[in-house]
């Protein structure tokens, strides 16, 4: 028996449907093409420069030669400082909004409104704020900790928003279930709601890390330019993104090395993202473990 003809015409008999499908496919292709082009362009210039010596070596000749070892260390330390502040702050804020105040109350609207406004503040403004507040008022100067805390303020809205929606997406009956067993609010939050919302919170942290790793403007005035190996969190340390900016803008013939650094940064973000996705998938799988 002959099978029906499953051409596009047979599956989508309407001309409008087929046209719509074509437009959609083109848009998808362009979007992917953009990503592929950027990667290819960076790889073409940068890949030949990358070696173990480049990843671990010190910066030489303003970055035209040598490596990026100290910068990688500074970048990761800045990230650690940033996450150390933003995770408790963001989670705490989202928990308060979701579990302790009534939705739509004045306090809740003020806080969410403020956090949302924070999300639309340009990063250079965070840089200037960080320089004045952390650098001068709190006397941290140009330092890794100052840069990390500035980044924390910047990505706070991302974390609050994703954690809040993760908490709000939880089954509503977990709360009466906990209360019905005579559990305190604290137990319900710490042992039931937070673990259940963890995959969503991880997504928020991942997005935040991506944003933090690629940030330049907020770091120039806070963690500074130093290319030495950082010895403590009080030292100034140049982030990878600042290095790329500097090579591309201030160093003649720096664009090849800028591409190499950008490629490393891209890889770093990809690694962090896939690690976070793998982690939250692992948790989800464990939770829905089939019997």
């Amino acid at each position, binding site marked *: 028996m002959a099978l029906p003809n499953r051409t596009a015409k047979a599956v989508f008999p309407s001309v409008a449907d087929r046209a719509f499908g074509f437009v959609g496919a083109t848009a998808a292709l362009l979007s992917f093409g953009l990503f592929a082009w950027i990667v290819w362009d960076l790889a073409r210039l940068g890949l030949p420069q990358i070696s173990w010596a480049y990843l671990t070596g010190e910066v030489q000749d303003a970055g035209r030669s040598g490596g990026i070892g100290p910068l990688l260390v500074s970048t990761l330390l800045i990230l650690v400082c940033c996450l150390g502040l933003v995770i408790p702050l963001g989670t705490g804020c989202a928990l308060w909004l979701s579990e302790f105040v009534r939705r739509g109350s004045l306090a809740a609207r003020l806080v969410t409104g403020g956090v949302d406004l924070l999300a639309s503040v340009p990063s250079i403004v965070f840089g200037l704020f960080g320089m004045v507040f952390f650098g001068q008022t709190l006397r941290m100067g140009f330092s890794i900790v100052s840069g990390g805390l500035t980044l924390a303020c910047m990505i706070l809205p991302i974390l609050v928003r994703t954690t809040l929606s993760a908490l709000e997406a939880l*089954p509503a*009956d977990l709360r009466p279930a906990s209360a*019905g*067993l*005579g559990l305190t609010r604290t137990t319900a939050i710490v042992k039931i709601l937070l*673990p259940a919302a963890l995959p969503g919170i991880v997504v928020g942290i991942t997005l935040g890390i991506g944003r933090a790793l690629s940030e330049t403007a907020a770091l120039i005035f806070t963690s500074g330019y130093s290319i030495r190996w950082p010895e403590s969190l009080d030292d100034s340390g140049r982030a990878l993104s600042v290095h790329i900016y500097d090579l591309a803008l201030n160093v003649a013939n720096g664009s090849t090395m800028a591409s190499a650094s950008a490629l490393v940064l891209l890889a770093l973000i990809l690694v962090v993202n896939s690690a976070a996705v793998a982690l939250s998938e692992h948790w989800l799988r464990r*939770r*829905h473990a089939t*019997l």
Partner: protein
Amino acid sequence: MNSPGISKQNESEAPPGGGGTTRSKVCLSVSSLSVHYRDFTAVSDISLDMPAGEITALVGPSGCGKSSFLHSLNRLTDLVPGCRVTGSIRLSDGTEVTHPKTDVLALRRRIGIVFQRPNPFPQSIRRNFDIPLKEHGWRKRDIADRMESALREVGLWNEVSDRLHKSAIALSGGQQQRLCIARALALEPETILFDEPCSALDPIASGVVEDLIHSLRGKLTVVIVTHNLAQARRIADRAAVFWVREGVGTMVEQGPCERVFTAPSDPDAALYLSGARG
């Protein structure tokens, strides 16, 4: 965290009698109870005694305040913003449930609740028992035994004993509901409130849960809200019919189950119970 309150392990679950035949002791005595949500009165002026060791069924059409009434019995109404409860609910030891100084957490240990939709925590089966038992002061070495006997009581032990570390939400709906009942039983409550416990389950699972609730008779006090009149008649010792009068939920009939079903005095209740209305 909190002090687990008064009676716990020692003064255990079973009211006197044990066989379920004693009518002497009243476990929950409600008088002139009303539940308000801001300006709206959900249920008004309920007076009802729930005898220890018996099953009391609350029936009536939707929106007549049965669930509001049920949730007020262990102060779950506290969770609803703007909800206010007036009147009196007295436990057998004289505790006044509605009193603001009552230890609500200890109260909810004594009066457990099982909801319409099974709501196990999205964690392992074992954690579903660990968390509440630890909270109420059970010692670590007693928790496993307590969990096992509760799971045996609901007939789930043989089905899950080899997968206690697996997720509770991977169980079937009926198993989840029995898990929730076991979780409530594990805390050795005096009373369990059931809020339409079978209406989200398929007929077979529903039958299993119904038999389970029936088997609790004599061991502890049961208050069950159900839309299934036949079910109420099968399992309950006493029944109360709720109805909406002038926009307010109220109780129109109560008494021994057979009497309520065969010779109701209220005309609305009579029509409802005969299946002609509601």
